[in-house]
């Protein structure tokens, strides 16, 4: 191309579509039930799959007999996932599966599969590191500065122990897919966060050329980090289909299996000691932390969180392996835990020296990455203002005269959120119609709407004139939606492909406007000469000049050069404050108000951005107050693999949410930054600190249930 277009975002005051809040494009189809999730699909001839899963936490399959199941009328295919000899490391491990003409027959058939197990010893409890023995593995040691001297010199020292348990993703649409394996080609309709990467992964596992695998997903019922790969159920489903002569098979996890093996957030427990000055400056940090990611051992994230430049640190991290389902990325993996451990320990230090924790956080923001220090200080002040902190905050246990006490707590977050590698194609047709084609997926975050807004802005057209295609493997590949990387990628690829397509159009149109191509701009449905609005053609007239030739131009996001290009970048901060009431007689916690201040660079659609923060807080309040996977030491089982005792928040449990997007020019000029994850990070810490502030004693372990709160109040924990 002769001249590389100037891809930069238009200045804040010149944007027409970006920065506005049109309603999400998928709203009407979703709210009316017309949106088809892959679990709603029923292609011609589809069979229903059902799983037999291990009832044992640790066992070896000694024999498996599927003959009775195979003979059951309606059964078309049986597949053994764990043949004799397989050692299974957790309850829920996939043993075998059946495809049948009805769901009922498939389920019935799984009960007719005879499996003999040799039950082996299990270990499922992670809270007590001393009991872990050989299941505890070194996860990393770190020494910075001279913590011994710093503690010896400290004017004040605080100590505490803290815990945040395993929680599950609890996607309302469980993991699974409809899959059809015919000859050497596969059609698959998965529930996935990674449409573009799915075929490649499946190809390797099934030895089918990736070019012969078609992946399609329009809507997903929740992923939160747990739905990237084809997983065992895709392999099993594919084999069931193949064995059934290529009929499509629907295989989704039942709720209990979803809770056992569909992924979870690792736990983190820690003993933490802080030393510092009476003015609030922390000078020394010592942390001994451990946690579990299931059978796959995962240690907690590095501490202190955010305050990474603290001068004296000693930390030991330990990974505990348990016989339970394997962890998966959970909406900012590792960060909730690190934020909880860090922010609770800082709140305890503030209490020790009798200071307002907001002031302690502000002072110690000096240890945050340099570029974020002022952002944190600004956001701490902003959040405090929105929460009426100065008016409402009291030292611990002094807020309220009756049994119900009020408390406020603060916590912080940090996230990357740069755009992943991806491509989009922008198409301009001679009739003036415009299309954006990119193989991304909309997790419900509003990706469709964002892409359309960027294209409309760039082409100077209304959003209704942009036709968008996403969600299949046949489109130019985008990346998986993880790490809050989608918005940065798709906004960049849409912008660049659209600008590239416009440049082509300008080359064709320029002579008739008596101008050079680079002098043209597309604004308000016209192609015109910059600075000479009279020299213009309507969009339709300009496109007619293409004759019969369509323009189709690519745009690419290359992560290593994106920073310099300026369309997307990374590095977001966030501050949240919980305002709670605690009934000290029952230990029940109610959220009065929850404030979130969040930056994410240039915000394309403020309403969608706020919705992401609302969703993150709602999810987070569930984890702060209710959710925990409960393992039984004696049987090795998950005792609450359901939505009855795996307790999720309902709307009446949430309280009043106040979301403030930090859209200041200094953030805007950095470019687009992802947002799905960062607001989900600080909630357990903010709520935990608020409960502690209300009742006067630290409740060490999340969730803030009556048994935990009353145990702290009644001195049943050390």
């Amino acid at each position, binding site marked *: 191309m002769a001249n590389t277009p100037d891809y930069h975002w238009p200045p804040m005051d010149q944007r027409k579509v970006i920065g506005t809040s049109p309603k999400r494009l998928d709203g009407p189809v979703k709210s009316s039930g017309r949106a088809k999730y892959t679990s709603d699909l029923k292609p011609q001839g589809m069979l229903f799959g059902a799983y037999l899963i291990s009832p044992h936490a640790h066992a070896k399959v000694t024999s498996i007999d599927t003959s009775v199941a195979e003979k059951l009328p309606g059964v078309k295919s049986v597949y053994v996932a764990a043949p004799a000899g397989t050692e299974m490391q957790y309850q829920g491990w996939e043993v075998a599966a059946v495809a049948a003409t009805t769901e009922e027959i498939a389920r*019935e058939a799984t009960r007719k599969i005879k499996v003999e197990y040799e039950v082996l010893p299990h270990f499922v409890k992670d809270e007590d590191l001393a009991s872990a023995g050989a299941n505890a593995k070194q996860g990393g040691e770190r020494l910075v500065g001279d913590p011994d001297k710093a503690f010896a010199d400290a004017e004040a020292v605080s100590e505490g122990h803290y815990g945040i348990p395993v929680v599950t993703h609890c996607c309302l649409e469980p993991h699974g897919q409809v899959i059809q394996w015919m000859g050497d080609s596969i059609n698959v309709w998965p529930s996935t966060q990674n449409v573009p990467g799915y075929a490649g992964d499946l190809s390797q596992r099934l030895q089918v050329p990736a070019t012969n695998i078609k992946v399609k997903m329009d809507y997903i019922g929740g992923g939160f980090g747990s739905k990237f790969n084809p997983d065992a159920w895709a392999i099993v489903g594919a084999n069931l289909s193949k064995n059934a002569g290529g009929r499509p098979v629907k295989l989704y996890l039942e709720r209990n299996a979803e809770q056992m093996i569909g992924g979870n957030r690792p736990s983190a427990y820690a003993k933490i000691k802080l030393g510092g000055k009476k003015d609030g400056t922390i000078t020394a940090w010592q942390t001994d932390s451990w946690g579990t990611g299931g059978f796959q051992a995962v240690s907690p994230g590095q501490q202190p969180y955010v305050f990474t430049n603290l001068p004296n640190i000693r930390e030991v991290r330990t990974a505990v392996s348990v016989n339970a389902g394997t962890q998966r990325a959970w909406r900012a993996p590792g960060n909730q835990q690190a934020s909880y451990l860090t922010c609770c320990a800082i709140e305890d230090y503030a209490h020790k020296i009798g200071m307002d924790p907001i002031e302690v956080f502000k002072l110690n923001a000096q240890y945050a990455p340099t570029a974020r220090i002022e952002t944190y200080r600004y956001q701490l002040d902003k959040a405090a203002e929105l929460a009426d902190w100065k008016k409402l905050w009291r030292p611990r246990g002094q807020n309220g005269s009756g049994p119900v006490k009020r408390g406020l707590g603060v916590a912080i977050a940090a996230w990357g959120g740069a755009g992943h590698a991806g491509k989009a194609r922008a198409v301009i047709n001679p009739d003036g119609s415009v299309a954006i084609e990119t193989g991304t997926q909309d997790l419900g975050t509003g990706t469709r709407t964002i892409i359309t807004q960027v294209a409309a802005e760039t082409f100077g057209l209304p959003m209704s004139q942009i036709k968008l295609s996403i969600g299949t493997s046949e489109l130019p590949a985008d990346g998986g939606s993880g790490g809050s990387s989608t918005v940065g990628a798709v906004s960049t690829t849409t912008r660049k492909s659209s600008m590239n397509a416009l440049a082509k159009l300008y080359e064709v149109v320029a002579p008739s406007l008596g101008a050079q191509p680079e002098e043209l701009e597309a604004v308000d449905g016209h192609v015109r000469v910059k600075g000479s609005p009279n020299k213009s053609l309507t969009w339709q007239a300009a496109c007619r000049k293409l004759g019969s030739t369509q323009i189709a131009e690519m745009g690419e996001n290359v992560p290593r050069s994106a920073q310099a290009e300026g369309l997307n970048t990374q590095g977001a901060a966030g501050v949240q404050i919980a305002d709670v009431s605690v009934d000290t007689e*029952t230990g029940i916690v109610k959220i009065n108000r929850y404030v979130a201040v969040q930056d994410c660079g240039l915000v394309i659609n403020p309403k969608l951005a706020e919705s992401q923060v609302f969703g993150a807080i709602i999810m987070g309040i569930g984890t702060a*107050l209710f959710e925990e996977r409960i393992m*039984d030491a004696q049987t090795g089982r998950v005792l609450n693999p359901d939505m*009855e005792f795996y307790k999720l928040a*309902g709307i009446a449990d949430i309280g009043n949410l106040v979301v403030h997007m930090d859209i200041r020019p200094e953030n805007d000029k950095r470019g687009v930054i992802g947002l799905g994850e960062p607001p989900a990070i600080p909630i357990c810490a903010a709520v935990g600190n608020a409960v502690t502030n209300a009742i006067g004693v630290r409740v060490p372990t999340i969730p803030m249930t009556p048994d935990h709160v*009353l145990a702290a109040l009644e001195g049943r924990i050390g």
Partner: protein
Amino acid sequence: MQSFEYANPATVQEAVGLLGARWGQADVLAGGTDLLSLMKEHLHEPKRLVNIKNIKELEGIQKTASGLRIGALVTMDELAKNAEVHAAYQSLAEAAAGIPSPQIRHMGTVGGDLCQRPRCWYYRQGFGLFAMKDGKSLIPEGENKYHAIFGGGPAYFVSASSLGPALVSLGARVKLVSAKGTREVPVAKFFVTPASEAAREIALQPNEILTEIIVPAAAVHTATYEVRQKEALDWPLAAASVALTMNGRTVTSAKVVLGHVAPTPWEATGAEAALKGKTITADTAEAAGKAAVLGATPLSQNAYKVTLAKVAVKRALMEAVKTAKA
């Protein structure tokens, strides 16, 4: 779910003729909010399902000379909204309204509330009513934070009934009908601590249908207070229903029944004795709460439920007096 025969009788007489002599032969389907999940989990595998929803005589709430007759098919929502119930049986209305899911309030019936099976997670995972494995109860050393603080085992599950404590405190009876005839049983005796793993936690026999609840008229002040963590679907951690007969401001007799703390609704006789002859104040209510939990034997993880039961009694009493003053 196991395949089953489905029967749609139009009368009680017809329905009882379809029941079996032993458990497992037939189950009675009303709202289905519990039964269907039991069947999906293969905890109940009835050969026949007897749908009683078409039996008109099981519907409705009627005021009678001696009190109130509540048909077994009355939904929890109907009960919560019924004017008679509101006027004279506040504790019952509160217990029904306290069920946080509108779906369950609209589908669940009063008969089903009394007959539902325990929510004990060991029971629901197939370890039986006594949660036994290798000849030993899993509960004392297991995950027992939602289990019983009274009774001392071997039944450690808690009665899941929302209405049970209120009905016991009101001296209500249930009518049980079989092909052989009709019997009336006090609700206090309807709930039983099963003596063996094979027994049931209610007095209903496999060949019987619970057809109605009879609540006697009494000049009492009542209230139910449930301690429940969530506003959304959730089970109470502890509850108390109280019924007070008063002479002016003095309690002449009191019934205090705890819920979700024992295999049956648990009559707190200590609290009842502590209240007799007293005026309800914050202090006497507190003392009654303390008396109510004397003798509790909490397990390794549920000492907090003793506190909650105590608070539930105190708050139910204060609530009952509030209605007394009004």
